[in-house]
Structure formats: C-alpha cells, structure tokens
C-alpha cells in the first residue's frame, strides 16, 4: 500500500506526519490514520436524502470511490458535518467530511500502511 500512496501523493506519509522519500521510509512504521483536513473537490450524488460521494480530487489526483464503508454525522453548532469512510478503486482508505453550513468538503483522514 505504501507504494500506491507514493504514486498517489508523490511522497510517503509517515505516522508522525513527516513527509519522507521512499529511500528513507521505514517499513516497520505502524499503520495508522494520518490527520489531513485539506479542502477537496468532490463529485457527489444527493439523492433520496442520501449523499453519495463518487469521486474526489486531492493534490491533483482524482480518486474514484469504490465503496463507502461507513457514514456518520456530528454536530457543529446548529449545523452538521456529514462524514464518510470510503475506499477508492486502488483499495486506499480515506475519510471525507461535508460541512452543511459551507457546503464544502474536506479530506480529514488517510489510512497509511
């Protein structure tokens, strides 16, 4: 998966948040979520009262959503954040959040192996 991430993001992400080249990447680093919180462009269907993310673009790469593995909501004052756990077509795992107040999307987490 690290190879896939290197191809996707141009760098490898480490659990401590450092960006390393593949040369000094320690394969023994434990898998974990990387907190990101980047704004992203998302193509989503809003139908039958459900939001269905289809694709998103992050750092110039477009990821096709293969499966939404979980969805939940949290309150942000009078508004809601709608969260999505999802897998792209290359079996990378991400979490996105849709802010109902701003209608904006953020990539909140990436699973790093």
């Amino acid at each position, binding site marked *: 998966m690290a190879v896939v991430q290197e191809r996707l993001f141009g760098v490898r992400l480490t659990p401590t948040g450092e960006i390393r080249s593949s040369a000094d990447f320690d394969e023994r680093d434990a898998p974990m979520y990387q907190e990101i919180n980047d704004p992203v462009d998302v193509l989503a269907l809003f139908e039958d009262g459900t939001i269905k993310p289809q694709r998103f673009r992050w750092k110039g790469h477009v990821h096709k959503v293969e499966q939404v593995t979980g969805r939940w909501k949290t309150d942000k*004052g009078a508004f809601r954040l709608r969260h999505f756990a999802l897998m792209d077509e290359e079996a990378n795992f991400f979490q996105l959040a849709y802010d109902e107040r701003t209608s904006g999307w953020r990539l909140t987490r990436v699973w790093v192996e």
Partner: protein
Amino acid sequence: MGRVNTSRTGRVNTPAVDQVNTYGWPDMPGRVVMHVDMDAFFAAIEEKFLPVIADRPVIVGGTADSRGVVTTANYLARQYGVGSATPLRTAARLCPDATFITSSHGAYADYSHRLVEIFGHFTPRVQQTSVDEAFIDVTGMQRHFDSPVALAKALKQRVRDELGLTCSVGIAPNKLLAKMASSHYKPDGLFQVPPDRVLEWLAPQPVSRLWGIGHRTEQSLHKMSVRTIGDLQAHSIRALERRFGKWGRVMYDLARGTDRSPVRPEGEQPREKSVGNEHTFATDTDDPVLWHATLLALSDRVGRRLRQAELRGRTITLKYRTDDFKTRTHAVTLPAPTSSEQAIFGAACRLLVELHPAGRRVRLLGVSISRLTAQDEGHQAGLFGNNRLERSHSASRAVDRIRDRFGGDAIRRLGAHF
C-alpha cells in the same frame, strides 16, 4: 405457544449440537426484558470503516506509545490479554502486532444514537445504559413476534442490516438476569435464561457475575467459602444481614435472580447526581499556570453541561492524581447553587492551592459538581439584576448561544488549556 428447540448452550444463533428447549411467551407470564450488548463496539465500527484490519488484532484508544488506556480491543486482541482500561503501552507489549487506532468519538456517538433509534422501532421501553448497551422491555409483544427469541433475532438482524454490526442479546424476566445472559455467549450471541430453572442456571456461576459484587465483597464472600452463586443461595437472609447489613438482603435477592428494577426510558430516569470532567496530562506537570489553565477548561465544560441540562450545583469537587499515582479528592460547598464556570473555577483553584502537596507533579485533574437542583429551583436573582454574578451568568449564556450555533470550538476562554 409451545417451546422451540434450540441448543443446550442457549446459543440459538448457531447450529445446535444438543437439543433442549427455549421458551415462548406463555412460559414468561411476567416481564420479558432484553439486554443488548454491542460486540467490541468501537473496534467493530473501525473494522467496518477499514475492512483491511478486520482480520488483525485491533486496539482503539490511541497510538501504541501514548499514555492513555485502551477503550476497546477486538476479540483477536483480547486473546493476547488486552482489554478495556489496559494501558496502551502495556497493550503494545502484550500484542505487538496489533493495529492501534485513535478513537473517533463522533462516529461512535452517532452509531450509538442510530442503535437506540432501531430499538425504538420495536418498543419505546428502551433504557440506554451506556453508549453500547441497552435494556429493552418487550413484555406484551406476543402479537408481533412468535416468541421472545424470534423478536431478538429480528432485532439482531436489523442492527446487522442497518449498521453492519453484531450484538449479543440476553432474554430474561428482569434486568439482572438479562444482563448476565447477554454476556453468556459473545460475540453475536443470543441466550434466554430458562424462567423455570433460574436458581439452577445461576448456581454454578461465580458470585462476581452478580452486579454490585465487586472485588472487596467477593473477597469477603470467599472468606465465608462462598465462591459460586449456588454457595450464596445456601446462606440464609439472616446470616447475610448479620455479615453485610442491608446489602446482605440485596445479595440474598440477587443470588435468586430477583430484580424488580424497571426499564426506565430516557425522560423517566432520575436526575444525575453529579456532572464532571477530567483531563490526563500528556506528561506529568508541576507548572501551576498549566494546572490553572486546565481547571479553567474543565470548569468551562462542567458549567456548559450544567446549563444544557438546566441544572445548578452547590458542591464543587476537585480530583487530582499526582505522579506517585495517588488520587485525592477535596470538596467545598458554596452558599448558593451555581452553573457559572467562574464560580466553579474559583472554588477548584482554591482547593488545588490549599491542598496540593508540595513538590509533586500532577498527572490528572478533574472538576465535578454535585448537590444538583433544577436551574429555576431555589435561585434568587439579584435585586437590581446587575450584580457581578448575574453578569457572569448572562455572559455564560451568551457564550452558550454562540456555541449552540457555531459549535463548541467557535469560542474559547482566554487561557484555557484545551
């Protein structure tokens, strides 16, 4: 209605090896109570989000090198001796191959809320006792389901379909037995206590399985050669009262599976006795500025929770744990009830300054308030409505309104630590 066949173990969701009976509605003429316990709830949610970790030991609570404790371990990790409240660093030693995940409390709270909504489709008599457990009173539902077991199966299926999670269900004539039954076979279990053989079913189980019997009582019982519930059943009520006072009478009833406590839906539950928050420092600290900043943040949270619940309190309790792992609590009672974070903070600071032992670093701080009354109970507004306390209350309410609209992080107290 006749009895339906199932396994001797009572685990009706797996193919039976030995066949005995479970019980229909006519066999349970009194109450029928279910206890639903989600299986490794937080870990199961994380596995659902990340199917790649489902076949690995998963530990939820933080990273392997952080100071906190395990919130939930999945069943694979439990095989290594990791459980809830195990320090994360110990868990990493016990199970070095585990995947550690930081808690997603927002997700867990939402799944918990949806779980209670599912239960509410069956009956409104639902008492949620924690984020992942609930009692459900299903008495009188024979018109809708052939048997209590059929109802429990439908409920389990609905939880699986809508949330993708498994739960274990216990069925019994009361809450005590239902809770014991739900933990009888986990995960994904379903067990019905035989209503005509309650004493026999209880007898071989250790006394510690009865609620309210903690380590100390268990030790006292062991000294009386009482190790199983059957041993406890052999003692007379007088003997138990002589040894344990009123608690002896309660134990006598528990040992016979007697529990009359009702399933109390939200809204019928007694008022909370206290409201509190605590914080563990990332590293032990002897910095008084950091202590006070933390007390300010904790007081702010306690005050907001009081106002949200429309409560005020009089007794402020400070809890602190020093670097020698000694935990102390000290309390002060105010002349009048309050929900003001300033009043709470002031009292907590005084307690810390007066009572903190010199030379010790602090590991944990906690602030709580008790002797609660309703907000409009026994409160007298200032005669002219402009005294300091009133101004402080109206400032707190203004901050509440901002947070209600824009979220908890929208406005913060200057100097608060977290």
